[in-house]
């Protein structure tokens, strides 16, 4: 159990990713769109593969653009299935993400001879290799791990996005009709949020993997939501949880020698279940903290 530069960098990166995801996740949670976030994180896979194939590198702009486009495409497809084809929402989500994810896996296998893209790496990433992967400028100056810079940029963009569009995001989350009535383009705000989710997914997939991004999108906000209902405390608590998850996840994974990203999720899960146990309504007679005690006003 040591604390050195590598540990610090990994924890910093993990915390940055967890906070970016958590902030976006709060708004997904309030819009009851957590499963859409899940769907996007699966659906960006073909975009990543195509971008990779076109540019030949995992760290190119094409990958981010491809994933962003696929993320938007998946929200549009879910919407089209629901509104145009009248398929119920849960089935639209299920059909969309499984199809796009399947295409992604097929593409990986088709291009396997050309593209060094490991499907396991895409799915659950490996944050532990981060200190080896350095960003070195053409003149030879070592600027530190590339992934940390990416996570920092992502964090900066996500907080900037939420800071600038805070009013629009909260209004459209709580009362879509009212926000449309006072002239906020609810659909546009929604698409912008979904693009941010896709961008965050793709920028984090190398380190925590496309599927584990969804855990960081959903679990810390849900945990925080069990404790508070107001928006600002919700965001603060989510950020705090993100930092805790990164620290504990790193050391526990180090201890049993396993996947750091997976352990971060397991820690998040532990927080989630403990919160649910404490804040959940126990049946009368066991806990006695039931908030839904029968009212006598009827």
């Amino acid at each position, binding site marked *: 159990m040591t604390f050195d530069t590598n540990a610090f960098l990994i924890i910093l990166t993990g915390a940055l990713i967890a906070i970016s995801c958590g902030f976006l996740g709060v708004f997904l*949670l309030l819009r009851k769109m*957590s*499963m859409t*976030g*899940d769907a996007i994180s*699966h659906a960006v896979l073909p975009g990543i593969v195509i971008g990779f194939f076109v540019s030949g590198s995992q760290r190119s702009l094409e990958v981010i653009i491809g994933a962003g486009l696929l993320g938007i495409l998946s929200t549009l497809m879910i919407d089209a*299935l629901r509104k*145009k*084809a*009248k*398929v*119920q929402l*849960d*089935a639209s989500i*299920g*059909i969309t*993400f*499984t*199809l796009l*994810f*399947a*295409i992604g*896996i*097929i593409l990986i*296998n088709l291009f*396997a001879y050309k593209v060094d893209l490991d*499907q*396991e790496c895409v*799915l*659950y990433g490996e944050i532990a290799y981060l200190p080896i992967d350095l960003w070195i400028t053409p003149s030879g100056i070592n600027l530190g791990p590339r992934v940390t810079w990416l996570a920092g940029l992502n964090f900066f963009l996500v907080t900037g996005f939420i800071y600038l569009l805070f009013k629009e995001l909260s209004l459209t989350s709580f009362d879509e009709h009212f926000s449309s009535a006072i002239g906020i383009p609810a659909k546009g705000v929604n698409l912008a949020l979904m693009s941010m989710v896709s961008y965050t997914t793709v920028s984090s997939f190398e380190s925590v*993997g496309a*599927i*584990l991004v*969804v*855990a960081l*999108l*959903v*679990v810390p*906000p*849900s945990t925080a*939501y*069990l404790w508070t209902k107001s928006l600002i405390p919700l965001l603060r608590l989510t950020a705090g949880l993100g930092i805790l998850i990164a620290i504990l996840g790193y050391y526990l994974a180090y201890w*049993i*020698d*396993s*996947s750091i*990203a*997976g*352990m*971060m*999720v*397991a820690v*998040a*899960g532990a927080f*989630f*279940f403990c919160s*649910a146990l404490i804040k*959940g*309504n*126990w049946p009368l007679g066991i806990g006695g903290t039931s908030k839904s005690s029968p009212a006598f006003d009827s």
Partner: protein
Amino acid sequence: MEDFLYFFTFQDPSITWVVMGITLLGIGSAYVGTFSFLDKKALLGDAISHAVLPGICLGFVLAGEKDPRYIVTGAFLSGALATFLSSWLKQNTKLSEDSIIASILSIFFGIGIVALTALQKSGNPEIAGLNSFIFGNAIGIAEADLFLYGGLSLAILLVLSLFLKEFRLMVFDPGFGKAIGFPMKGIRFIFNVLLILAVVIGIQAIGVVLMAALLITPGAAARFWTDRLQPLLLLAAFFSILSGILGTYVSFVVPQMPTGPWVVVFLSLIALISFIFSPKSGIIKRFIARRSYLNKTHRDHLMKALFKAREVNQGSMTLEEIYALYPFHKKEIAHSLQLLTRQGLVIQDSQGVQLSSLGTSDAMRIVRLHRLWEVYLNEFMNIAPDHVHESAEQMEHLLTPELEALLEQRLNYPALDPHQETIPRESHDL
């Protein structure tokens, strides 16, 4: 082509086994999935299929090798835990269903990844097989495993068919079922057990991530072809088998290609075709129906305007006058005008547009329906005369001759509508 013949003539006994296996588990998951689709709980299956991963690892650790019995048991137990937790959270916290499902799914999957990575680093050579659970590998199903998976599939089918009535109640009207004395909680429990079993055996072929497709997509696609439960189940099973066999074929022909993704692609293709082309409620069908209804309303409005012009003894209307009445639908009105002229219902000459004698009786009917409906609303529904017009604007396109006769009879052939306008009839001289 040779591959095709080799595959579909089942010369190779292992192909026969694989096809049999994928058929059985396809039917099982399509049946269970269709019920959970109708129950609007389609994504619970997705959560369960991600959640079995820790159980698979646990089963592996306990058995020390890839023993299907241990793995199925472990997977079942962790799937059951996930199901229990999600229903507990649903009842006892304020979280919404989708965030519960997304949380359970990702937490269990994360724990599974931790266990899988730890096992991989432990250096056991048998571990390589465990990866196939993530993406599925139908070709890799051994003959011995098949009896276990096939038997479980058959058990699922048997229970579902025996308790068809009970599950039907659970999906469509659990309140009624409870009222007439069915143990709805027990029925839901059995159903959840079946769902978890279907997931556990399905992931062999298709993998944990894509299992949701095998549950959701066949039912969603079949729903576009029928409204009845039994044909729905059969059709869903058929779609599932078809894409299962096609997917297996592709992964047999193309080396290094996993089965699961191809099964999902074929299933989704079937679903998309159903959504677009279904003659019952497909996108094209509904588009055409909507177009023809809109055309009818524009046509009806035009005829009505011409009839009213004649009522005030104006005879014919100029094109400008007509367009001024419908400033937002010029194109549609011009189109209907063309159509009506071709059908001989409307005459266009130098003075303008007017109804032909054939068109007059048609237009008269529309105006009559409109005014009859206004009388009906006013007299039978006690709606004030200044509120009846809007509803009549819609009903004039919909009332059938039978309803018209009934209205006439009920209202005793009224002469005037609530706005004191004459209700035109054939015998009536204009």
